[in-house]
């Protein structure tokens, strides 16, 4: 039986990934867009010899700050945004209803889509970090890689759970295609991803601090900061992200619907 569950998860994850890679919008917004943004931000707004940014007890080079911030944004796009749109489309088109009529085991379905997130997040975050190191002189300590993996994994779990939870309020794929990307852009602004937190009004920083993206960005920035050693883990950041993960999972488990939410005649 365990073999059969393993096969179910693997097969579903593989085809979920295949569908993603055959969808041009997913490839552009999930993979190309964060890379282009990093190149633009680090070319336009930050120079190699700019003074370090100082916040939350950290001292970090602007190029490294942007690299970590864009990695956090990429995590959100590949999890939250991607799952809101995918799950709502699958539900609206009746594919979820069709799956529900088979012996499919529900947890293998969710696990497969989380695995898809893990693979895509891993690929994009690794690409951004390599780009930072190669093109922007980011200093990546060996121990910090462990910290980045932990933050990215926890961020993936939290934002994936929230993405599935939000499908409760997105009746159609059109709504999901607006809510998913818009929420990511909006949060990126107040989380210091597009504009450094040192330049944001305190009120906006406080708003951003409520949500997980700010803590994921700060966590990844901690890993790349000059004055941090070891894994670079911070209890507050980890706890806030974990809290959102539990909230998202609880809402998702209660509200997930397999049937289309709009009548089709």
């Amino acid at each position, binding site marked *: 039986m365990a073999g*059969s569950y393993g096969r179910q998860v693997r*097969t579903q994850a593989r085809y979920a990934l295949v569908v993603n890679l055959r969808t041009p919008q997913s490839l552009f917004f999930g993979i190309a867009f964060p890379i282009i943004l990093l190149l633009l931000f680090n070319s336009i707004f930050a120079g190699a010899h700019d003074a370090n940014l100082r916040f939350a007890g950290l001292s970090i080079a602007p190029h490294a700050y942007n690299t970590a911030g864009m990695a956090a944004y990429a995590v959100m796009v590949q999890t939250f945004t991607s799952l809101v749109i995918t799950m709502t489309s699958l539900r609206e*088109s*009746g594919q979820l*209803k069709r799956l*529900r009529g088979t*012996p499919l*085991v529900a947890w293998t379905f969710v696990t497969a889509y989380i695995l898809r997130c893990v693979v895509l997040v891993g690929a994009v975050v690794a690409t951004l970090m390599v780009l930072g190191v190669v093109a922007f002189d980011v200093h990546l300590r060996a121990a910090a890689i462990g910290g980045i993996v932990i933050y990215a994994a926890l961020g993936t779990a939290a934002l994936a759970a929230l993405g599935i939870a939000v499908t409760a309020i997105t009746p159609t794929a059109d709504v999901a295609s607006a809510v998913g990307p818009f929420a990511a852009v909006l949060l990126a602004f107040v989380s210091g991803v597009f504009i450094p937190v040192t330049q944001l009004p305190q009120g906006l920083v406080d708003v951003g601090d409520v949500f997980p993206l700010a803590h994921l960005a700060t966590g990844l920035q901690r890993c790349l900061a000059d004055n941090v050693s070891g894994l670079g883990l911070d209890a507050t950041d980890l706890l806030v992200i974990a809290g959102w993960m539990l909230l998202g999972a609880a809402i998702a488990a209660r509200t997930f619907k397999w049937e289309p939410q709009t009548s089709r005649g």
Partner: protein
Amino acid sequence: MSGDLAVSVSGLRKRYGEFEALKGIDLEVRRGEVLGFLGPNGAGKTTLIEILEGYRSRSAGAVRVLGVDPAKPTRSWRERIGLVLQECELDPVLTVSETLKLFASFYDRPRPIAEVIRLVGLEGKEGARLARLSGGQRRRADVAVALVGDPDLIFLDEPTTGFDPTARRETWNTIDGLKQLGKTVLLTTHYMDEAQHLADRVAIIRSGEIVADGPPDQIVGASQGRAIVSFRTPADALDGLEAELETRLQPSGAQTSFEAADPQQALLVLTTWADRENVRLDGLEVRRPSLEDAFLELTSSDADAGDDGR
């Protein structure tokens, strides 16, 4: 629970608020039988089939599908039924064989993919994405997905609605193939010819009730021996004919028809009258009632009788 019954339903009711969609359905389907649910839109066909499929709850009544209450679907029960819903609900960017491999992974003992593809006649299309198939091919891919778990019972909800004649014929051939495999098939349709062609037995649903249940010939044969006589002479040129025939004329556009219990006698009366009155009976025709006539008669109190598919 009798072993040779695939489906048994008694006293099934379904209420949506004030509206009663199913008003006490009694039904039995034997294993290996192909049953067609026929009814106008909104008669309750989809509600009934979705209760049997385990998608909807019921308000009252007893239901057994392959010996299991579909309100409490189990995984092993799902292994034994195959579903084709109203529209094609498959990912358009996956290919035929990718889609089948995906669904096959849900079953403990799936039917080999190549065999399923052959059964639905999609050889040569294995590598084509669903989005690039024609409507009929996509429907057959849909049937293939329902077959991949090698189910005992297959539900087909309006399998050919909106299809052109070629696509309908292709899908019919596939469904005929299921019959040969000995599968029990429940299909809904609002096409008379589809039910007559595919089903061993037809249940006609009107306003949440089964108003007729039997082999197509028997339903038609409720008026066995009777015939419908029609001709293209407007009814207003036929003063006095009703009294002569002792029956009601049914005008329909330029055509007039009447039912005759004894066609030979009726034709004699009709032609004698026409000769005497010097009325021409263009396009004079005598035919046995079809399933469509029986259907229209049985569902005539419904405002929306759907279209007849031709």
